[in-house]
């Protein structure tokens, strides 16, 4: 892999500067069944095409951001730092 990834803060950088955290997953909102839990933990869509995924600019600004990348070509379609409103669907409902 040697493509460039545009960090939302730093601009296009060598992909080796980043840590890849895998595709954006949906964390179950309430206590899951064993099947729901294992599919959240261990199963991935593994799409051949555009995929939303997490990246961390480890050797740079240390920002976590999301990218849409075509897994077939490594073309990065867009990157963004998730904001409260947008990514709230991923966030677990927490009752404290």
């Amino acid at each position: 892999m040697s493509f460039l990834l545009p960090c939302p803060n730093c601009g296009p950088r060598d992909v080796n500067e980043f840590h890849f955290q895998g595709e954006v997953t949906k964390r179950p909102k309430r206590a899951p069944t064993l099947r729901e839990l294992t599919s959240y933990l261990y199963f991935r869509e593994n799409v051949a095409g555009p995929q939303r995924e997490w990246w961390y600019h480890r050797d740079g600004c240390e920002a976590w951001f999301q990218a849409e990348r075509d897994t077939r070509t490594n073309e990065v379609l867009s990157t963004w730092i998730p904001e409260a409103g947008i990514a709230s669907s991923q966030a677990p409902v927490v009752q404290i």
Partner: protein
Amino acid sequence: VRLGPQPYERIDRTGSIDREGHLVFRFEGQPVRAFPGDTLGSALYASGRRVFSRSFKYHRPRGLLCCSGHCPNCMMEVDDVPNVRACVHPVSGGERVRAQNVRGSLERDLLAVTDKLGGPFTPVGFYYRTMIRPRWAWPYYERFLRGVAGLGKVDKHHVRSTRFDTEHRYVDVLVIGGGSAGLKAAEHAAAEGKRVALVDEGPDLASREAGTTEFEILTPARALGIYEGGLVPVDAGTILYRFRAEKIVVATGATEQPLLFPGNDLVGIMLPGAVRRLVNYWSLKPGNSAVVVTTDDRGLEAVEDLRRASVHIAQVFDLRERRVREIAARGKKGHVRSVLVDGETFDCDLLVMSGGVQPNYSLLAQIGAKVEYDISRGIFLPSELPEGIQAVGAVTGDGISAEPPPATFNGAAKKGKCFVCVCEDVTDKDVKRAIAEGFDSIELAKRYTTVTMGPCQGKLCHLPSIRLYARENETDEAAIGTTTARPPWAPVSLGLLAGRPHEPAKRTSMHHRHKDLGARVMWTGAWRRPHSYGDPVGEAKAVHDALGVIDVSTLGKLVVRGPDAAAFLERLYTNRFADMAPGRIRYGVLETDSGRIMDDGTIARLDDETFYVTTTSTGAGAVVQWFGWWNAVWHMDVEIVDVTGALAAVNIAGPKARALMERLTDLDVSNEGIKYLDAVQGDVAGVPCLVLRIGFVGELGYEIHFASPYGEYFLDTLLERGRDLDIRPFGLEPQRVLRLEKMHILVGQDTDSESNLLEANMPWIVKWDKGDFVGKWSLEKVKERAVRENLVGFEMANGVVPAEGAQMVVDGKPGGRVTSSRWSPQLERAIGMGWVPPELAHEGAEIQIKVDGKLEAASVRLRPFFDPEGEHLRS
């Protein structure tokens, strides 16, 4: 051999010699004279040398063929570096050059016998089919074969003396190839105000007129490939440039191709470019009497240069005008003496063959261009270039016109070996045999015959071999197709790819003081830490009896602040923080969502919205990343600051710890003033500090955090003021013993990727009633499925210390494993921790542990070995 001074020598251009200067290098111990501008190859040629190497398999003598650094014929060992192309390696003076793949001398190589007698033993694939029986004998065969066939030898004991570096470069336009098309493209882009770099292999860099637009030229430098994202690694000797460019202009030109006829590898048979370089760059006379066989104008251009160098031209065959069916070169001792063309013999000591050129499309094909066969010109051409890639000049087929030659010029009669591939010594017979055996696909045949897999990587044999496959398969070249083009385009030394030896180490701000105190330093992750100060037993004893101090600056340290700070930590850790009073401390364990124990540490609440979190030394980076990620998911109102490097920390522990603290601070350090698990801010030894009263080594202890630059001063002060209290610094090894006495888990040592808190016997730290937290669901599933193993302590019956990783045996079967074990001088017992089946996870259960092949008895302990009630800690 050297011609008289030539008019162009005065012109300052790459490759031409300077007769004013004198250089000397050694070949096989003998001095060889050279001019500045000479290459090792041209100087050796000038000295009269014609045989430059012995071939891969048959040990046939080989001389200069391409003279441009592509073919294998001039590979030599230069200053202990094997496989250096002498023809393009500039002389700088003092080199030690040796021939390779030779027993004896280049002129008399004992292994040349394989050429004469080897006939039945050397067909393609012979060794691999024959020498595997009996199977056990293969290693002996292999050792023999590797000794007699191959390239240069790597000196296993050679000390690395060259420093290689990597440099990342960015330009607007990168031009690969400095021929006239490449230069023009570079000048054009530079004139538009673009930042331009041009890289070129060196020998053929076209001349530039002075005063033209400025741009950077790197030479000799070879683009090794074009990778994903337009990454172009460029080999510039000891620097690997990693180029990125908005636009890449490929102007790699074309490579001259040989003709296939019996005896086509004899010394004195050259490509036209080789002849022209010898004359024009180094003023050398390539021979006395020449025959030229050509399919294009290159051969004719060579004729002109030869005439200028007063070489007698015996005969010129222009295959565009005259059809030739049979060519056979004949030689004496491997040197060409005559050539037979359609029944007529011509004496010569130089045979120039030109089979046209093949565009160097490899870089373009690597990045995704298509490669198609052009039937009229008999060459493969790149097409459909990806965005951002441009091709100019001969690589696109520009200016190439040639009559495609027949696959071979073999007559009916046997006239010697006809080489398809000079690198690997593969003949037309080998290729035919491979096809007869069923290797009809080019990719399979390539792997079987190894054509194109030698040092030239197909530059001189790819096209001719495809022609031969096409003819033998009775099809055309387009149907045969090409093999996949892969980097590297040119040979690259492994040292360059490896780069500079790089082993980053982290040291605390007290590191040098540890060394002064006699510390034995060890690696823990990227940290360098004191293993001990020479007396681990005494150091541990000092903590129990008096006072010890350990540098714990390596602990990960985070400040978590904000209105949501408590809620944030409650979601990440398994226990509670919201109900914690400011100024108090709690131990916490991080789990992943799969329930795995990830890290542990202490969390101090400094005020309502501020927590000071410590992590394990090696887990700090992962925890910082982990916190950041979850906050990117949750968007809570909290800030996370990593202060690991900014703050140093020491732990002072032992019964006299309070006495020392009283001397150093105005804080009330009484058991009421700073209670167990209190966090207090104040000056210690005049330094603003955060004092955490925790003790993972079992005795009364204070963990003191302060700004890193005070490190040495702080440690000095502690040791000085504590001298009469018998203070001693202690290292990691005594700390391991002290921790184990308290049965504290060491994440990553006692736990692995399967370990969760329930099975690690820490259910007390999981607060089920507080709502969702990371790892909760998986722990619930563990609770449902029941525990499969437990982490427990154990005590050996007879004091033998088992190895860490030792097996526990239950009813004669493997039943568990030891993860930590030490001799405790304090307890005078061998103690440890390990995983056992749940039915044995009760106090006093009898287990057996394998030590040196024997079973030793041990009994399970669930409570700390030392001070189980924690009275020392709370004292």
